């Protein structure tokens, strides 16, 4: 690896982040921002971020940060992969990290992705176990791999856990229309679904709101979404990008980073369940045991969910 300049103890590591959406979206982008904050706080790095960076502007930002001497540039989304691949060779002293991608390029481009299928699998299993009606629903936002995979994983998990379950799924085609997300969830709930999972960034909260209003349960995605609706969100399957990002940046700072793609999941502790909060006492022990067993099988590698 060429990017060893970050190891200088004298100067703090400089880390820049690009997100495709607004960092206050309570979802995908917020996660990355949280990761950056973690890096700043725990690794003492100097950080910068740019949000809502569309593809047409990405190169400009990435090159800009590289020229400004940033040691690590994190593109939070597969869409930055192409551009980073092109720019990376020009800045051998900088590490380029693409989140949610499987790209890599010697000597300084690596990628980090979480196993969204696994995340979905977990959510689906829990949803199926919690369902009384035998119907559960998953709603995805934009049609991009991390989301479609989590929805597909949801379906798989639900069916494997409770074979008789019926799974309703759909894509919203976007992340900003809260009203549409809420209505979609309502339509599924009225179809009979009694556990709903929404994975759609800003719009996602619409699904939880619908569940709350209709008195059914919701599974949170990506972050612990229980605080948004304590009586509705049973648990959330967290994809801990913050932790994962921190780990990777730490590796870079120690000079241990390799230019390869990294897929993290339950086993690596990057995907895990949020606390049950108020549901701790409401869920029957039997169900809790089943959930634990599924988590354990993923953790041990007994069960492997491919992210392809």
């Amino acid at each position, binding site marked *: 690896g060429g990017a060893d300049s970050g190891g200088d103890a004298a100067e703090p590591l400089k880390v820049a982040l690009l997100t495709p959406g*607004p960092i206050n979206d309570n979802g995908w982008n917020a996660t990355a921002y949280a990761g950056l904050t973690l890096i700043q706080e725990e690794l003492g790095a100097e950080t910068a*971020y740019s949000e809502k960076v569309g593809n*047409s502007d990405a*190169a400009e930002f990435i090159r800009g940060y590289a020229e*400004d001497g940033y040691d690590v540039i994190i593109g939070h989304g597969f869409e930055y992969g192409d551009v980073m691949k092109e720019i990376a060779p020009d800045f051998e002293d900088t590490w380029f990290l693409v989140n949610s991608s499987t790209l890599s390029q010697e000597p300084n481009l690596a990628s980090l992705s979480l196993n969204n299928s696994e995340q979905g699998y977990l959510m689906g299993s829990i949803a199926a176990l919690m369902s009384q009606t035998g119907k559960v629903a998953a709603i995805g936002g*934009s049609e991009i791999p991390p989301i479609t995979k989590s929805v597909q994983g949801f379906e798989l998990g639900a069916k494997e856990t409770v074979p008789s379950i019926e799974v309703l799924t759909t894509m919203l*085609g976007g992340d900003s229309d809260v009203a549409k997300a809420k209505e979609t969830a309502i339509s599924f709930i009225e179809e009979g679904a009694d556990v709903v999972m929404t994975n759609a960034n800003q719009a996602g909260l619409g699904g939880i709101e619908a569940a709350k209003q209709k008195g059914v349960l919701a599974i949170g995605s990506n972050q612990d979404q229980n605080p948004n609706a304590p009586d509705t969100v049973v648990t959330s399957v967290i994809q801990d990008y913050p932790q994962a990002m921190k780990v990777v940046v730490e590796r870079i700072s120690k000079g241990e980073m390799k230019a390869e793609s990294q897929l993290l999941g339950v086993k690596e502790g990057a995907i895990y369940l949020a606390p049950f909060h108020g549901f701790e006492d409401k869920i029957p022990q039997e169900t809790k045991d089943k959930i634990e067993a599924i988590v354990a099988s993923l953790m041990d590698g007994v069960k492997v969910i491919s992210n392809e």
Partner: protein
Amino acid sequence: MAQEMRATIHESLERKLNVLTDIVFYAGSVAIALLAGGLVMLVAGVSPIEAYKLIWDGAVGDANGFKETLVKATPLLFAGLCYTFAYRCGLFNIGAEGQLYVGALAGTVAALYVPGLPWYVHLPVCILAGCAGGAIWAGIAGFLKVGRGASEIINTIMLNYVAIYLVSYMVTGPMKEPGGTLPQTARLPDSALLGKLFDSRLHYGFLLAVAAAILLYFILHRTVWGYEIRAVGLNKQAAKVMGIPVNRNVLLVMMLSGAIAGIGGYAEIAGVQNRLFQNFSPGFGYDGIAVALVGGAHPLGNIGSAILFGGLRSGANAMQRMTGTSTSLVYVIQATIIILVVCNRYWFGGLKKRIIASLTARVVGRRSDARPEENVAVVLGIGEREGRS
């Protein structure tokens, strides 16, 4: 005779002064808009001086920044020309955004599915396909206007949404990169890409856009067709009585206007992105309206204003990179610029007239005849809308 001569000198001088004062006042409007933007920054807790310094540095601070400005200016110029051209024919094409998308889509289809051609054949084919895509998309609105009398304003807006979803469908469905998982097409073959200028991100699309501006200027002001377009734009009824085929012109202008946006869309793909994916335009089409207005709805004026807005965008990007300030601020500045430019006549019309009058008087001597109020509007050509049905 002498008086006639004087009148002629007077007039040409006055016209020049008019253009000059227009430029001065437009620049003034932009300055005021920037001030207003600064105010918003203050309220939002950002230091305007620092922000503007960053914007300035980012936009024109160095060669790279300026090239980046031109990269941004390219799609903006295409979109501005798209609006300008339709506007000059009395049409409101709010659909540059959709036309960019469909142009990009059509161009990409040609790039990916017409293989094995040398670049000097393939690239023109792709550009023409982009043209055709944009032209068809705008043509739908034109056709509905001519055939059914349906407002092109609403239809072009609706078509923007349809186009964006269409592209989204294509890149997640039929045109998805074979074997890939991402919602995007395969990389365009080299023979379909636009070359780079000065070894930077700046590509030949910029020259294409400037050429389009010059071509449009030539069409509008030097050709028979341009004469027809302007006549239709200014007075449809009279144009009809004079024997100008109004409907045919409306349809053709709408289509050419869409074609310009279409090339813009393809140029963005073939020059910057190298592949098509959803939401590739961050609203270039809508910004084009502002570009056209600030450019005085004149093709050559568009070049300047596209660079201005391009600079604003790339500068704002630089600002965000360094301070994390949201680029949404630029929308506020843009909106303020539009408002100030459009209302220029109301706020500064009288002042402008007085300045021109006193300047002309100083040079040629006072004239006795009255100047009707309308004159200013005629020369301004902005904020005035004639010939709408």
